[in-house]
């Protein structure tokens, strides 16, 4: 039963994440040991609801498949029918019961919608339904274009899981908080974008192959790739239109929104296009300069249509999200943009470093001469791979690193103190340093061993070639980033930290003030909304000014009808 596998694959990791988050919140979060047990109740209530949803949907789609299937010759499947009946007749009413009860709770208690249990359920349930519906929709569409045979089970799953998805979509719009619905929308958008892109790549590749003379794709039958690709594209595009284009694209520009558009849309598109382009370049270099394993061009370049389509689609995804970003982004650099730029710079740098290390290895091999290039391995192809990595990685790193370093003045101070930059520098310095030390140990070990055994010579150098190549590149990376970090510190020395480390705001609910204040003061900011409605809007400037000179490390700010009150507190 493929559906069980799909559900298990989606459910198990998410459930584990949920359990870990829940346990962490219970153990370390505020209100731990509060003792009213509501968190535990929520957890089991929504776990039960989720389990019952799956049970009822499997049962009902199993029964429906029997109604929709073609003319049956034999039906000797007692256990399967018993299972479908049990799941439908027991799971269905129980799901309805727990569902109605949960809905009433959500309507009557605002806190219910903020609970972790509902938060996980409101994203997990519609996404599970979405994934199963997508697979079913693909099967039905592929049947419609005669690429697959009729599958009554798929049609039944499309109806049942599709209805469940619609129901959850509507309920989510009504009860979920903005953050909860954005998590759901972001994950759905990723699924839609990924599936639509794969479908489009497949379709373009099949179209090119067909035009180039491989006509098998046009034959209606078991190898109808054109139909399958179209079905994949329509499935993905429908999800993308509903999740992204009609909803998420128009929702508030939160960090999660930028987190989707930048690293996934812009970054994912660019990396996909570049890596496919690099593979095409490598294939070309090997064909003209290296030693291709295939004898004829059509076999050597058999993947090229797919790779070329990947370049086009990746480029399209990259261009589209850049356009979206240009419309949305404020003048100042957001942290999500930094994450994206540093990520791109890191990818480019690692690719280029891999290229340089391989070139160094090849140079040492050529210099030492003895043994020559190993017989049987296509060393020239390795060298061409290194050149490809270098040609692609170095410009990528250079473009993004220049863009990062271009900031000056006040922007520069903000840039060098940003957490993303610190993490980037420390990671490259740290990882580069560790790799360099290991390479050094290996290299010296080989040298000393050969010296002790009296056979130190050019062959020793040859044995050390990988260690030397790695040592040179990782050492250079570590040194360069250490120098950059030193420069940053000279520019903006670590200031004595002033102002509180933890701020608890009590007053009007406003997520924006939490983010802005956290950015402005560097403190950890929490907000507890007042329920008596006497709090006014938060005055940001006054908050920043007062907190900036405050000697307290932990402070509560209570907003009332007579202004702000600053109270020192102590957390456990």
């Amino acid at each position, binding site marked *: 039963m493929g559906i069980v596998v799909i559900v298990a694959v989606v459910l198990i990791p998410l459930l584990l994440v949920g359990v870990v988050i829940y346990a962490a919140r219970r153990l370390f979060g505020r209100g731990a040991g509060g003792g009213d047990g509501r968190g535990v109740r929520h957890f089991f209530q929504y776990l039960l609801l989720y389990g019952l949803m799956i049970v009822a949907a499997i049962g009902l789609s199993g*029964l429906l498949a029997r109604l929709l299937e073609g003319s049956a010759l034999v039906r*000797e499947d007692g256990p399967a029918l018993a299972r479908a009946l049990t799941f439908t007749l027991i799971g269905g009413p129980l799901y309805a019961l727990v569902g109605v009860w949960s809905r009433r709770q959500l309507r009557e208690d605002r806190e219910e919608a903020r609970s972790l249990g509902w938060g996980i359920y409101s994203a997990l349930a519609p996404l599970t339904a979405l994934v199963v519906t997508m697979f079913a929709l693909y099967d039905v569409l592929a049947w419609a274009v005669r690429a697959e045979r009729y599958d009554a089970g798929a049609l039944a799953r499309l109806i049942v899981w599709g209805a469940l998805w619609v129901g959850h979509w509507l309920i989510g719009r009504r009860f979920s908080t903005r953050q909860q619905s954005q998590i759901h929308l972001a994950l759905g958008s990723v699924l839609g974008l990924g599936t639509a892109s794969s479908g489009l790549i497949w379709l373009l590749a099949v179209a090119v192959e067909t035009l180039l003379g491989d006509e098998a794709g046009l034959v209606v039958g078991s190898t109808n790739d054109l139909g399958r690709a179209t079905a994949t594209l329509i499935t993905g595009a429908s999800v993308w239109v509903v999740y992204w284009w009609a909803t998420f694209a128009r929702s508030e520009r939160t960090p999660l929104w930028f987190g989707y558009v930048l690293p996934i849309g812009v970054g994912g598109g660019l990396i996909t296009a570049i890596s496919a382009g690099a593979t095409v370049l490598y294939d070309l270099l090997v064909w003209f300069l290296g030693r291709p394993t295939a004898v004829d061009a059509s076999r050597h370049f058999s993947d090229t249509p797919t790779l070329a389509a990947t370049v086009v689609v990746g480029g399209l995804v990259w261009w589209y999200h850049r356009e979206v970003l240009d419309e949305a982004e404020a003048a100042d650099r957001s942290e999500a943009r930094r994450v994206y730029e540093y990520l791109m710079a890191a990818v480019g740098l690692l690719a280029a470093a891999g290229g340089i290390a391989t070139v160094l290895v090849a140079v040492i091999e050529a210099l030492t001469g003895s043994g020559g290039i190993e017989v049987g391995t296509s060393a020239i192809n390795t060298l061409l791979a290194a050149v490809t990595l270098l040609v692609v990685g170095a410009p990528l790193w250079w473009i993004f690193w220049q863009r990062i370093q271009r900031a000056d003045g006040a922007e520069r101070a903000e840039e060098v103190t940003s957490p993303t930059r610190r993490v980037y520098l420390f990671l490259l310095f740290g990882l580069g340093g560790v790799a360099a030390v290991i390479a050094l140990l290996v290299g010296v070990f080989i040298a000393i061993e050969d010296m002790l055994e009296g056979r130190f010579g050019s062959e020793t150098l040859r044995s050390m070639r990988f260690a030397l190549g790695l040592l040179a590149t990782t050492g250079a990376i570590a040194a360069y980033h250490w120098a950059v970090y030193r420069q940053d510190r000279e520019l903006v020395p670590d200031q004595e930290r002033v102002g509180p480390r933890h701020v608890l705001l009590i007053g009007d609910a406003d997520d924006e003030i939490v983010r802005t204040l956290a950015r402005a003061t560097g403190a950890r900011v929490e907000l507890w909304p007042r329920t008596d409605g006497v709090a006014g809007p938060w005055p940001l400037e006054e908050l920043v000014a007062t907190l900036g000179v405050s000697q307290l490390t932990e402070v509560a700010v209570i907003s009332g009808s007579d202004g702000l009150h600053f109270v020192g507190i102590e957390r456990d």
Partner: protein
Amino acid sequence: MLAVIAAVVAVTRAPPTLDPATPDGSVQTYLRAMLEGDTETAAARLSSSTGCDEDDVTSAFVTDSARIVLVDSTVDGATAIVTVEITESSGSGPFEGSEFSHEERFTLRNEEGSWLLVDEPWPLYFCDRS
């Protein structure tokens, strides 16, 4: 409501018994006998050209739980091809069920007025070697 209707129909709707004198009916009789362990009836639907006899039918591995749906049926003179989709299910507990489907083609020849299976029809293999 939909669940109840689906449940009632699924339980009450039994597959129709086809005329065994037709290719579809012959395949139905053969497959039903196979699943029910009626080796004599199953072997009677096999042409002598298959080389398979009742012993082969008895020793063949066949699931006891399956749904079989007619996909396609064509008759060309004295030869007919019947394609079916077999969904085998295994596991008897509520949470240990698994299903897998496969398509099978049955070739039949009209021998003295009755449609008999030729070649090596599923689930029989290597009859003449045994």
